[in-house]
């Protein structure tokens, strides 16, 4: 039997908006189950309700209806909280504190004993590569350093469950890669990681499962490979053939007209059957084949299609 790190049951949230305080539902009957030990990517465009969900998980806002449980307990239970680490979106921490003081403050809130607190802080500062800046006030930290101190703070209690809200937004490619590597190494340590994102390549590389939230509704949850594998869309064959017109005369079963790039020509075929036929004819005509690459649907395409069904075709445009 699986044990779950996060379970939400029929979770709904209404906010009151405007002058008349009209009710507006921002989260519709969310049923989510995140297994212990998995990396779960919570995806959706801006305004889909990702941060609202995270705030509900943390008890920063209260559900209109439905329930949340973390690590088998009610979300606001101190026991659940003490096994949890959280990194808010675009974190901002106390300007007046140094990195070390900030972590010390967080450690005190966790009731960590003095000696253990200090050694754990030193260890994390080292691990996240900000040991040199430890005694600098946070107002002098760069965006990337703030993100790191935020992660250090989240890891302080060696949590079983990490909730990260857009951990990679605003970071440069190097910083994103470091966060990605960190998440993967935490997964190896057996931690559950729930993170929201709209930076899709990052998600593709590290998530076991993803959930896609659009307009406050959870559209799909699944293992990423399975969600994408079912949709091998086309196969890309590149050939070297300076005489473009000769290719047209071969009457190849292509799914779209061939495109020329210098002395190379890009051919798109729909599936493996047509691929075989195409290769045979190319072979007969002694056309040199450079590469054959199956075009899997990327998460980005999937995402675009889910978010906006009308753009299904446009998503594949190359």
């Amino acid at each position, binding site marked *: 039997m699986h044990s779950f790190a996060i379970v939400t049951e029929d979770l709904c949230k209404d906010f009151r908006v405007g002058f008349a305080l009209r009710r507006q539902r921002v989260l519709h009957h969310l049923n989510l189950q995140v297994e212990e030990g998995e990396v779960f990517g919570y995806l959706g465009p801006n305004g889909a309700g990702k941060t609202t969900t995270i705030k509900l998980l*943390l008890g920063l806002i209260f559900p209109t209806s439905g329930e949340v449980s973390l690590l088998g307990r009610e979300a606001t239970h101190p026991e659940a*909280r003490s096994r949890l680490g959280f990194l*808010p979106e675009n*974190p*901002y921490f106390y300007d*007046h504190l140094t990195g070390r003081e900030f972590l010390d403050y967080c450690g*005190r*809130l*966790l*009731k960590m004993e003095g000696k253990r607190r200090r050694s754990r802080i030193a260890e994390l500062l080292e691990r996240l590569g900000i040991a040199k800046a430890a005694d600098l006030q946070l107002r002098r930290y760069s965006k990337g350093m703030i993100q790191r101190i935020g992660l250090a703070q989240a890891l302080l209690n060696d949590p079983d469950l990490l909730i990260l809200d857009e951990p990679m937004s605003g970071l440069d490619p190097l910083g994103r890669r470091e966060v990605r590597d960190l998440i993967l190494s935490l997964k190896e340590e057996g931690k559950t990681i729930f993170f929201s994102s709209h930076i899709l390549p990052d998600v593709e590389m590290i998530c076991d499962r993803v959930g896609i939230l659009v307009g406050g509704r959870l559209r799909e949850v699944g293992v990423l490979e399975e969600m994408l594998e079912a949709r091998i869309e086309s196969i890309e064959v590149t050939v070297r053939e300076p005489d473009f017109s000769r290719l047209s005369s071969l009457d190849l079963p292509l799914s779209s007209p061939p495109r020329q790039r210098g002395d190379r020509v890009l051919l798109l075929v729909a599936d493996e059957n047509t691929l075989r036929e195409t290769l045979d004819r190319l072979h007969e005509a002694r056309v040199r084949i450079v590469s054959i690459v199956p075009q899997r649907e990327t998460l980005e395409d999937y995402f675009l299609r889910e978010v906006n069904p009308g753009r299904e075709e446009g998503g594949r445009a190359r």
Partner: protein
Amino acid sequence: MRILAVVLNTFKEAVRDRILYSILVFALLMIGGSALLAALSIGQEAKIIQDLGVASISLFGTLIAVFLGIGLVYKEIERRTLYVLLSRPLPRDQFILGKYLGLGLVLLVNVSLMGLFLFLLTRIYLARWPWHLIPVLGFLFLELLVITGVATFFSSFTTPTLSALFTLSLFFIGHFTPDLKVFVARFGGPLTRVLVDLFYYLLPNLRHFHQEQLLLNGLPLEGIVAFQVVLYGLLYVVAILLLAMLLFARRDLK
């Protein structure tokens, strides 16, 4: 331990803020400046210095209480620092209490510094130790604790601008409710009287904390009165903080 961490952080934040020092320097200049005014009076130097000094401490203490108090909770929500704190096993009521006590500590230190300065200055002119200033400053500190409570209360559910408006309003009303009650008792109709009574008991009566008319003129203050004033102040603080915690407990932190 958790509350203590919040208290110390609040204190540290205020102490590392330059605004606090500007206020403090201004206050000390003003108290010192009263010595100049005193030079103009004949034989009343000590009285002038004490009157102006106590008024300065009251004014600048109130400024600190109001302007740090109004952002006390709001700023942590606005900057989302609170998210991290509350995702830890820190109950919301402990957070409110910690913030309040932190600012209380800031006020204690400030009033003590300003008070010490006034105490020494008065000593020079009075040619004896002005011990009677101690209870005056004590009551003044208690008044500031009440004002801070009011500011914390407003800060826990509204913006700093509105909090400032409400808190300052209550500060002024708080000094005039007794007059209003006397006035209405004489001229008002029954309905007005009920309303004013309601306000009188609901809003803080800050005049209780101003016993300097007696104390600065060398008149004795009865022990029972002093006790009542202290009790009133503490009960008011407890009540308004409980109210703040109650409102904050179920609040959505958007």
